[in-house]
């Protein structure tokens, strides 16, 4: 199950405020968790897909303050599996920059969507990103919000194309804003295809 499948599962809770405490992942009660730190968000996505595809129990989370660079994600994993996981990643040319034990709660990505119906158009907002489509044609007509530099790039790549034809933010985005847009993209597809 990839990150966005994970979010899909969480969508059942949309419009419901989360409990207000971040990092309350099922795994955070365990003592033996570590985090894998990568060079950039794109590597995190690749590593996540690889590890989940092989059945490892991992989660994509926000980094703790002491290793925060700015626009980043980390992978939380069971420390007891460290050697096996590192071997898997190295085998695929994806070695992490470092591995750190989890010592404090990790940040959890946003899981709330806001939907606005303009009549002929539907807009979905996830965190700071908004995606708008023409309801009749499923054409993506606008992307707004965000602040990382892949947002204008994503907008230029997606606007004017249909939901079916446009590249997904996951494929071409690199940042947390790109992640947020992916969530909006998945939610709007769910809304338009139901």
């Amino acid at each position, binding site marked *: 199950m990839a990150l966005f499948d994970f979010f899909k599962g969480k969508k059942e809770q949309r419009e*419901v*405020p*989360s*409990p*207000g405490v*971040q990092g309350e992942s099922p795994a955070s009660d365990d003592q033996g968790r570590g985090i894998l730190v990568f060079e*950039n968000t*794109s590597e995190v996505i690749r590593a996540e897909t690889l590890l989940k595809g092989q059945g490892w129990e991992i989660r994509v989370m*926000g980094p703790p*303050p002491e290793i*925060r*660079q*700015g*626009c980043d994600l980390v992978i939380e994993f069971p420390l007891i599996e460290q050697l096996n996981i590192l071997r898997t990643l190295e085998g695929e040319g994806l070695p992490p920059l470092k591995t750190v034990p989890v010592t404090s709660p990790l*940040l*959890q*990505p*946003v*899981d*709330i969507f*806001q939907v*606005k119906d*303009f009549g*002929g*158009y539907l*807009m979905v*907002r996830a*965190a*700071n990103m*908004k995606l*708008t489509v*023409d309801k009749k044609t499923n054409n993506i*007509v*606008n*992307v*707004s*919000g*965000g*602040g*990382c*530099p*892949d*947002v*204008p*790039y*994503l*907008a*230029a790549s997606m*606007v004017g194309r249909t939901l079916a034809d446009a590249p997904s933010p996951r494929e071409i*985005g*690199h*940042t*947390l*804003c*790109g*992640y*947020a847009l992916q969530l909006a993209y998945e939610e709007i597809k769910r809304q338009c295809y139901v």
Partner: protein
Amino acid sequence: MLCVVGTVPTENFPLVEGEVKLIGDQLQIGTSTIAINRGTPALLAAAVKTADVLGQPSPYAYLVGDTGTGKGSRRLYVHLTEVLPQTSFQTITFHYLQPLIPWHKRLQNAIGAMTHRPRPIADAGYMYMAKMSGAAADYDLFTPDVGELAFLADEEAPHPFYTRGFILHEDNRVPDLITRAYKHRNAARYLLIKGEKDHLADASGILESIDSPMEEALEAIGGTGDTLTGLVSVLIDGGMAINEAAVAAMRTNRLAGRYARPTPATQVIDIIGHIPQAYRDLFGTG
């Protein structure tokens, strides 16, 4: 003079600096041309149009290509730390840049080495970085939308992607979010909050709200926040007090939006063209 720092969404766009001109529907800086779309190009186009109406010099920009890998932003940060101390900009607006916390302090030092302190304005990724770095209070103006205001209000969140749900749900209670942002020192001296209603706020709360003309479709149009940041930057650089400039910018941006007769499918370039007329109709200059 106004300085704008940002990115162009093309990976191979070179690092360039210079005065920005508007030639037809393209921006020109040195020998490079840039299509006007959302992001820093929209901010610059709005700024050039506004400066033209006011008879002010066009903005000076530092730009680099970056599609989200952060490579371009890093190169730009390196360049800025070298050149900014020798400059004398009155106002510097930082925009779509990759948030890379270690660079923020270095740039703050470079700005501190300038002969005169410029008025720093931050929007988009650089605003995220300023907040993450705990240096929000060093800025004169942030220009968040309501979602980004929730991020500023969440003292735990290093990026809007991690804004906690119970805070995100407060977006109908803008005054509470403002209070919380200032309480934790995560807001600039002024906040210009872009949304269905635009607000100007400071540590005492909302100073002014503008909700007319109302065009609901503007919320969906990418780049309308960028044009507002461009407008307010030029007005501040022209000598207007920040609170007056913010109100004038909010009113102008909304009226330009109205003139474009927008739908959610309207593109920001169709609004930018109406900025001069909107400004003249409101304030008579030019």
